Every structure is written in structure tokens, then in C-alpha cells.
């Protein structure tokens, strides 16, 4: 009966319009929700029915799905850029802290302390036996050793801080991977029409966290699940996860991935913040190694020359500087010498003449000796190169962070353009669905009048 069919059709129209208003309301109210992807109602005519005499008759409208406005390719590229930016930023921020340990521009910097030590030796040439000047040399030597210790300690502290952060983060990342795994299960089991939009939003937010932490490649599957890869190794695949672990000792901590019965080291493959921390650790260790090289080679050269001189007691000079395992951290004035300035061996002969400073000239020449980089660099140039190498690395990471941030910003704008709620759009949708609802209601009203007409007959 045509009137009944009209009523049914109007009913589907009312339902569809009401659903549209509901989805619009959901969009409007989540307009500022972080990670919320706008929903779109997909509707289409219901399948027609074949009536008498073979005539096909419409049966109204139906909501086939509620789609999330998303471009997976854009999402994948955005997360990739997010990982790159997080990696460069983490490196930059970690090494910025290390830079402060070098106190550039401060008179207590390693470079300035080194200058002050040799200046004190130059001043001693005026009065080689003067107690005050000899004591000044010891004080300047201690200050120089202290600044070297401080700079070296800063590299060690940076490495320790980085490794501590890596250990802390790994646990969080594994928990996030487990949450993604659980969501993937729910997504694959969810209702097809309603769609697991909220679950997908939540999973996207978690994937963003993982991308930011370790940098991931994403592979979307037809059933809505995702596979995540780090450096070519799957960490989430077919609703299974591979946990990240940390092993090794301090200074050589490695990030590993449990693959079946074996483990794969992925320290050099991870990106994101952890990858940035690993890169910063490498720079900090290189800087520390350079300082150790400096401490060992400089102390050896200076001690060798010091041993060719004679102290105030006419004895041959002993060690001026000492160092232990971590040369730059343990670098110090010899304890006996530090306690007795008479032991500074500046005389060229064991005559104990007060003005004999022949060995001083030779000690001063150590400053200019080409001790480093295969005999091409003097001590002072080597220190400057440690500064500039560290500065270049930090600046490089800063530029990378700015570049990747711009790339991420562009991609995120694109992602937002596709996925974010626009209140103007929703206002138009609201008007449209309201109009549809009113129109469908009017059809019901007309059908009702048709019924009444029939009933009065």
C-alpha cells in the first residue's frame, strides 16, 4: 500500500536526519578535543522493493556508515615527521644542558682556565722563586684541572641522564604498545555500521605517542588493524607486540627488541625522542673521549717537560698533573706539588738559584706543542675544536629540529584540514539535517492526512 510505504520512507528519513543531527552534535561538542577526527554520515537509498506488476518502489534512506575524515597516508607522514622532529629536539635539548658545563664566555670556562694557567707561568718568569707567583701557578693549575673535571663530568652526567631517561621511557612505550594491541582487538571486533571511531581516535593518539617516543612506520590493514615498525622490525603486528628491552651497562646501554626467542639490537635504528637521546649520548661520549685524550696527552707532555727541570730543593721535577681511569675527570695537580709550591720545577739546573727559570720557557712551549690530531693541533686549538665540534652538533640538531618542526607543522595542518571539526561546516550540516528532518516529518504529516482521507471514505 502506497501510503504505508510513504510512511516507512518518511520514517527512514526521520531516522537518518536525526542520526545526522546526532553526529553533528558529537562533532560540534568535540571540536576542541585533542585527536578527535570529525565524523561524516554516509547515507544512501535503501534497496528498492519489487511491487505488483514488477514496479520497483523506493524504500527510503539508510545510514550505511559513519566515516572518520582521515587520510591514512597523511597520518603516516605526519607521524613520521613528528618522530623526526622529536628526535632532533631531544638531541638538541640534551646537548644544550651539556653545553652549559663548558661555560663559554665565562672566565671559569675550560678554555679560559687553560689560558690563565699558562699566563701564570708567563708571570712566573719575572720571579721564578717568588712564593706568591709559584702559588699562583698552583692555583691556576688547580682551577684549570677543575674546569676540565667539570666539563668531563658534564659529559658523564649527560650520558647517565640520557640512559636513565631511556630506561624510564621503555616501560611507558611497552605499556602504550599493549594498549594499541588491546584497541586493535576491539577495533577488529566492533560493529561495522557504527564503526569503531572512538577506538580509532584513541589508537591514533597512542600511535602518536609511540611515534614521538621512538619513531614508527605504519602499515594499515584492511580489517582496521595496524602494524607498526621500528627500523624495519615490527613492534606491533597482527595484534601481537614485541616488547622493547634495555640491556648493557652504564655508558653502553642498548635498546633491544624481543623477536621470538632471540633479541635484536635496535639502538641505532630507533627514531623519535629515544633516537634523539641515543644520538645525543654519542655526541656526549665523543666529547668526553676528546677531553680524556686532551687530559692524557697534555698531562704527559707537561709532566715530561716538568721532569726536565729542577725544583727549589734542586731535585728533579716530579709529575705536575696526575690522572686516573677517566683521565679528564680525575685530572688534578699532583698532591705533593699542590701542597708545596717549592716542588714546581722551573729551574734549568740544580743550582737552586732564585732567578733560574730556564725550564719555564720550555714549559710555556708545551702550550704551542702540536700534541693532537696527528701532530697538527696545539692544546689550545684542540680545546677550541672540542667547543666548536660540540657547538656544531648542537646547532645542527637545532636546525634539524626547526626544519622538522616546520615539516611537521605543514603536515599536521594538512591532517587537521582533513580531520578537524570546522564549526562552520557543522553549522551548515545542522541546518541541512534539520531541514531534512522537517521535510521527512512533513511527509509523515501528509501520509497521515492521506490515511485520514481514506478512513473517512
Amino acid at each position, binding site marked *: 500500500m502506497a501510503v504505508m510505504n510513504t510512511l516507512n520512507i518518511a520514517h527512514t528519513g526521520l531516522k537518518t536526519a536525526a542520526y545526522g543531527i546526532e553526529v553533528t552534535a558529537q562533532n560540534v561538542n568535540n571540536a576542541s578535543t585533542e585527536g578527535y577526527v570529525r565524523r561524516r554520515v554516509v547515507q544512501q537509498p535503501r534497496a528498492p522493493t519489487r511491487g505488483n506488476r514488477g514496479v520497483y518502489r523506493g524504500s527510503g534512506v539508510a545510514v550505511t556508515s559513519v566515516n572518520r575524515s582521515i587520510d591514512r597516508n597523511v597520518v603516516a607522514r605526519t607521524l613520521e615527521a613528528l618522530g623526526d622532529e622529536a628526535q632532533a629536539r631531544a638531541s638538541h635539548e640534551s*646537548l644544550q644542558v651539556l653545553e652549559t658545563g663548558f661555560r663559554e*664566555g665565562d672566565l671559569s670556562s675550560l678554555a679560559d682556565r687553560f689560558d690563565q694557567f699558562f*699566563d701564570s707561568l*708567563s*708571570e712566573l718568569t719575572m720571579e721564578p722563586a717568588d712564593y706568591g707567583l709559584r702559588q699562583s701557578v698552583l692555583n691556576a693549575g688547580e682551577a684549570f684541572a677543575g674546569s676540565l673535571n667539570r666539563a668531563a663530568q658534564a659529559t658523564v652526567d649527560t650520558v647517565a641522564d640520557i640512559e636513565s631517561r631511556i630506561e624510564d621511557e621503555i616501560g611507558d612505550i611497552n605499556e602504550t604498545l599493549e594498549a594499541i594491541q588491546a584497541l586493535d582487538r576491539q577495533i577488529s571486533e566492533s560493529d561495522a555500521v557504527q564503526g569503531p571511531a572512538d577506538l580509532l581516535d584513541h589508537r591514533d593518539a597512542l600511535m602518536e605517542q609511540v611515534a614521538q617516543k621512538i619513531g614508527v612506520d605504519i602499515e594499515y590493514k584492511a580489517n582496521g588493524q595496524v602494524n607498526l615498525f621500528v627500523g624495519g622490525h615490527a613492534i606491533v603486528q597482527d595484534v601481537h607486540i614485541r616488547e622493547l628491552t634495555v640491556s648493557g651497562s652504564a655508558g653502553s646501554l642498548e635498546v633491544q627488541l624481543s623477536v621470538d626467542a632471540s633479541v635484536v639490537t635496535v639502538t641505532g635504528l630507533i627514531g623519535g625522542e629515544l633516537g634523539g637521546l641515543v644520538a645525543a649520548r654519542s655526541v656526549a661520549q665523543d666529547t668526553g673521549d676528546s677531553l680524556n685524550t686532551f687530559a692524557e696527552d697534555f698531562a704527559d707532555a707537561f709532566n715530561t717537560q716538568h721532569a726536565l727541570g729542577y725544583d727549589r730543593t734542586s731535585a728533579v721535577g716530579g709529575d705536575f698533573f696526575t690522572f686516573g681511569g677517566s683521565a679528564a675527570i680525575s685530572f688534578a695537580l699532583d698532591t705533593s706539588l699542590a701542597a708545596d709550591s717549592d716542588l714546581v720545577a722551573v729551574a734549568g739546573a740544580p743550582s737552586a738559584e732564585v732567578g733560574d727559570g730556564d725550564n719555564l720557557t720550555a714549559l710555556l712551549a708545551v702550550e704551542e706543542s702540536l700534541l693532537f690530531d696527528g701532530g697538527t693541533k696545539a692544546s689550545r686549538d684542540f680545546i677550541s675544536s672540542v667547543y666548536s665540534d660540540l657547538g656544531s652538533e648542537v*646547532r645542527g640538531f637545532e636546525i634539524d629540529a626547526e626544519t622538522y618542526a616546520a615539516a611537521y607543522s605543514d603536515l599536521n595542518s594538512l591532517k587537521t584540514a582533513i580531520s578537524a*571539526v570546522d564549526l562552520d561546516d557543522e553549522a551548515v550540516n545542522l541546518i541541512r539535517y534539520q531541514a531534512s528532518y522537517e521535510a521527512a516529518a512533513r511527509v509523515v504529516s501528509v501520509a497521515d492526512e492521506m490515511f485520514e482521507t481514506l478512513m473517512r471514505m
Partner: protein
Amino acid sequence: MIFRTTWHSRMDFMSVASNRIGAEMGKVNEQISTGKKINRPSDDPGLISQLHSVREALSNQEVYSRNGGQAEQLHNVVDVALKDLHLTLSESRELSVQFANEHYNPSQRAEAATEADSLRDRLLTLANTQFADRYVFAGTAYDAQAFDSTGTYQGSTDEPETVVGKDLTVATGFDGSDMLTGSSDMFTALEDLTTALLADDTAGITAAIDQIDDALRDVENAIVSLGGEMGRAGDAVDLSENMSVELTGAKANLEEANVVEAYTRLVQLQTNFEATMAAAAMQRYSGLFSRL
């Protein structure tokens, strides 16, 4: 490509823009507050080595200048001592020439011997001249008298030197045995003169004149030699001071921020920041919902 712009994307853009402006404002503020454009190696890694070299050279010049200044003071004292020695020796020569004359009798020569003795004492005092507790003619053994009461040299034949420039040293003490008693021992000459005067020995007095002449030549040579040393010390001090001025300028160019430029940039950034904030505030009123 036309993007669909949303309220969300506009706000994101403003957030990114304000963060970027804020970061640059932080840097500019740091330059203004410290007055330096390089506060850490990463601020300009390429300039760090150059800046360190300038700072090192500047620090060296300060020491060179101090050492050179002290050496100059010591040289001035030595110069005065040498001139007094020359004067005393000249007086000794005049005394010798006067009493070598046949007209003087033994008692007059005996009186002259007392004066010769006194001149010798003056020579000894001058040969033991001190500068800041150091005996300037004692070589590197300057903590003890250069000559004892007999006129015997007690000092060292090595001369102390101080650094006044790169690979440049000047003497800060002198070998008295070479400088004052090199070819003729002035003390022996005066002692011989006293002996000859007491003995009324004109031939001996005449012989003493020759010895005194040799001693005078030693002192004259020493004055010339000291002049060279003083010149080197003076040049070194002048060079250090000039270098310090140049290096201070170079350091300022490398290190110091252009505060006017930085302040101008800060004003620009503040304007941008305020404009961004104002644009963000306007977003509240531009929606279609507010017109429904």
C-alpha cells in the same frame, strides 16, 4: 592546492607561530641582557675558535704588558746604577790623574787614598743595587749580594729573563761579573789606586788610571747593552698595549651583540606576537554558529 581550513587548523597555526616568535624573543632577550651574541658554543660554532684565539691572545698581552712594565722599571734602576757607576769611576779617574802629578806630597796622597777608598765603597754599593729586593747585577742568583766586601763576584753568570711577547724575552737581571768586572775589575783598580796613593807611588797611580779606563769602557758597554734591552722591553710593552686595544676591538666585534639591532628585532617580534594573539582572540567571533 586549496586546504580546507578549520577553526582548529587556524588555532594550530597561531600556536606554532606564537611558539616560534616566543623562542626567538627568548634568544634576542638573552642577547640584550648579556650584551653578547655568543653565550654558548652552538650560538656560532664557526666563530668559537676565532673568539678563543682572540681571547687567548688578549689574555697573553695582559701578561706580556705586566712583565714588560716590570722589566722596564728594573731596567731604569739598572740604568741609573750604571750611570752612577760611570760617574764614580770618572771621579776616581780624575782623582788618579790629579795625584799622579809630582806636585803632591805623601801626606796629601794619603788623604786622597781615603777618598779613593770611599769611592770604592760607592762602587760596591752601586754594584749591589737592588730592585724590589733583587740584586740586579747578581744574575739569576739575585737573592744575595752580587759582590762581597772584597769585590768578589757572588752572583750567577746566568741572566734571568721574563717573557714579554710570543717567543720574546728580556733580561730581568744582569751578570755583574761580565758587565762590571769583565775586562777590568773596578774594585781592584780602586784598591790598587789606594795602595799606590798610600805608597806615594806615582807609577802605581798611573797604572791604576789604565785599569779605571778599562772599567769605564766596561760600564759604557754595559750602558749600550742595557739600552738595547730597554728598547726591546719598551717595544714589547708598546706592542702589547697596541695589540690589547686591537684585540679588545676584535673581541667585541666577535662577541658583543648589536644591542640596537637586537632591541629593534625585539620590538618587531613583540608586534608580531601581539598581532598573533589579537588574531587568535578574533577567532571566537567569526563562527557561523554565532549568527544562527
